[in-house]
């Protein structure tokens, strides 16, 4: 067992133990905070596939997060107001059934990721960062002026959506659902990295010339990674909307894209549990520093700077040392 494996196991145990303790002590808000951390970790896990494995520095991942959120918001809005989403050419009804919402969120996020990916992957480096940022701004301004779904005000969903066999309004049950999804995605990511696709993608990031030599198209590989990444972040967006029972254009904002990136880098780029470590740390900082001072952003900024300057590899790197298989 490497130190990283032990660190990951401790993290996972913590994600089970802390909410259990909170349940026993009757501290439901701690569970809500943990749910937030898990969902943000899921969003960051999505970005980590594009960023960590594919080397795609996307400053527009809030697009997929927002799409996931709006998929939930729009479907649930129509379900709770008993109006159809579309009358023609065929009737589409809203729904409050989570699996369907997730499916729609993933499909739409994937589709948009594919389109954005095709256009953006024509560029590289700084241009790629900026064009993804521009797509994010486009969606943001679109959502702000989309008055049918609340515009800048966003939309409130009065009751959390349903999952068969669960009472999703109970914090611990919703938490369990989110944690399960996170674990599934992490297992998927782990297998993806070991798969021929993952290895080829890793090579596309590090030595693109070698891929050309064996006849693989690095851009196509990156596009697939970008789409998978968008799908996962979209799913996280749908869950985040359900956690807050609310969606708004801020889910599309470039600051949010920046925050997801912060989570990944804080935890350790390309590390399997990096997003988890990053999200847990971020939520904890937000909670405790925010309680101490109005000006907590200054300290958050300094901590981030320290991580970039002195702790390459983020928290995981700090605790577990350099990764053997990478870099």
């Amino acid at each position, binding site marked *: 067992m490497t130190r990283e494996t032990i660190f990951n196991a401790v993290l996972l145990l913590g994600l089970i133990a802390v909410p259990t303790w909170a349940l026993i002590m009757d501290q439901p808000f701690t569970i809500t905070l943990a749910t937030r951390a898990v969902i943000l970790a899921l969003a960051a896990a999505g970005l980590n596939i594009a*960023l960590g494995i594919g080397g795609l*520095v996307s*400053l527009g991942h809030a697009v997929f997060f927002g799409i996931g959120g709006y998929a939930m918001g729009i479907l649930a809005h129509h379900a709770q107001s008993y109006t159809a989403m579309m009358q023609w050419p065929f009737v589409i009804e809203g729904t409050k059934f989570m699996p369907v919402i997730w499916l729609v969120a993933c499909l739409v996020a994937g589709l948009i990721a594919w389109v954005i990916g095709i*256009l953006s992957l*024509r*560029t*590289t*480096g*700084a*241009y790629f*960062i*900026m*064009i993804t*940022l*521009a*797509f994010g*701004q*486009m969606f943001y*301004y*679109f959502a*702000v*002026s*989309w*008055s049918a779904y609340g515009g800048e005000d966003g939309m409130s969903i009065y009751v959390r959506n349903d999952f068969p066999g669960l009472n999703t309004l109970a914090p611990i049950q919703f938490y369990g659902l989110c944690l399960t999804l996170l674990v599934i995605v992490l297992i998927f990511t782990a297998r993806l990295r070991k798969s021929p696709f993952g290895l080829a993608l890793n090579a596309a990031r590090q030595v693109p010339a070698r891929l050309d030599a064996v006849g693989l198209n690095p851009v196509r590989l990156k596009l697939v990674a970008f789409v998978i990444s968008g799908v996962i972040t979209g799913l996280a967006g749908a869950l985040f909307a359900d956690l807050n029972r609310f969606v708004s254009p801020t889910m599309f904002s*470039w600051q949010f894209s*920046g925050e997801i*990136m*912060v989570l990944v*880098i804080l935890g350790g*780029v390309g590390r399997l549990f990096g997003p988890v470590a990053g999200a847990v740390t971020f939520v904890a900082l937000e909670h405790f520093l925010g309680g101490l001072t109005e*000006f*907590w*952003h*200054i300290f*958050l*900024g*300094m901590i*981030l*700077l320290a*991580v*970039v*300057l002195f702790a*390459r590899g983020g928290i995981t790197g700090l605790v577990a040392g350099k990764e053997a298989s990478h870099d």
Partner: protein
Amino acid sequence: MSTILIIEQVLNGLQSGVMLFLMAAGLTLIFGVMGLINLAHGSLYMVGAFAAAAVAGLTGSFVLALIAALAAAALAGAVIETLVIRRLYDSDHLDQVLATFALILIFSEGTRWVFGSFPLFLDIPDALSGPVTLPGGIEYPLYRLALIVAGLLVGIGLWVLIERTRVGIQIRAGENDREMIAALGVDISKLYTLVFALGAALAGLAGALVGAIQSVQVGMGEPVLILAFVVIVIGGIGSIKGAFIGALLVGLTDTLVGIFLPEVLKLFMEAAPATSTGSAIASMSIYILMSLVLIWRPSGLFGARA
């Protein structure tokens, strides 16, 4: 729609483009020479505006305020270059984005700590206030004309600096071959600090000039920063000429689409939805422009081939 209105709107577009150029020039210079993506460039714009407002409040002099803006932004630039940015030149873009994102947080909340949460006051100097009548009977604010002239002068100054002076030769050499200029005995770290401070001073100047007709408040830099990024990406990162053309394109598109699209849409639909749809599309227009340019030319209009 009269010709006068159209000319006036074109002037407005030029003016906003020229101010964007001041921001974008520094940004693209820093990227071209040091290969650094600086998200905190908007914070330097804010520093300039706040310094100008503070000094104008104390002394009542707009000239002193501008000098203070230049000095404060250059100083802030030199300090962060020496303390933070310098360590990022060899890192990948990812680290740069994160570190400069962190600097935004520190600058914004730090400014609020020092100056409080209320917007500051900065006014146009008396000599430049009020409108003038241009040939053709167009009434136009004198200050905005002054901004256009100031922006063009700075542009010419930059061109002279880079094409005609010793420092300029070093800067151009730095863009092409870092080892070479180190071998020539130029102190590269001093050159980098200088370039960064120059870019910062330009941002600070833009902040002070624009601050006189806008609101001087925390967070004022971020919207401009994003526009400036759009500009340098359209123009081609690292190209001053590209930044200039890109800035004018963005300024004109942003202004003209916002005015004329709702009017065009009114020909096809009712007034209220036309206004609302038109402004919705207009707010996305520059990003649409940028994606179109990048799809057509992935390294911008004047960028080096990737």
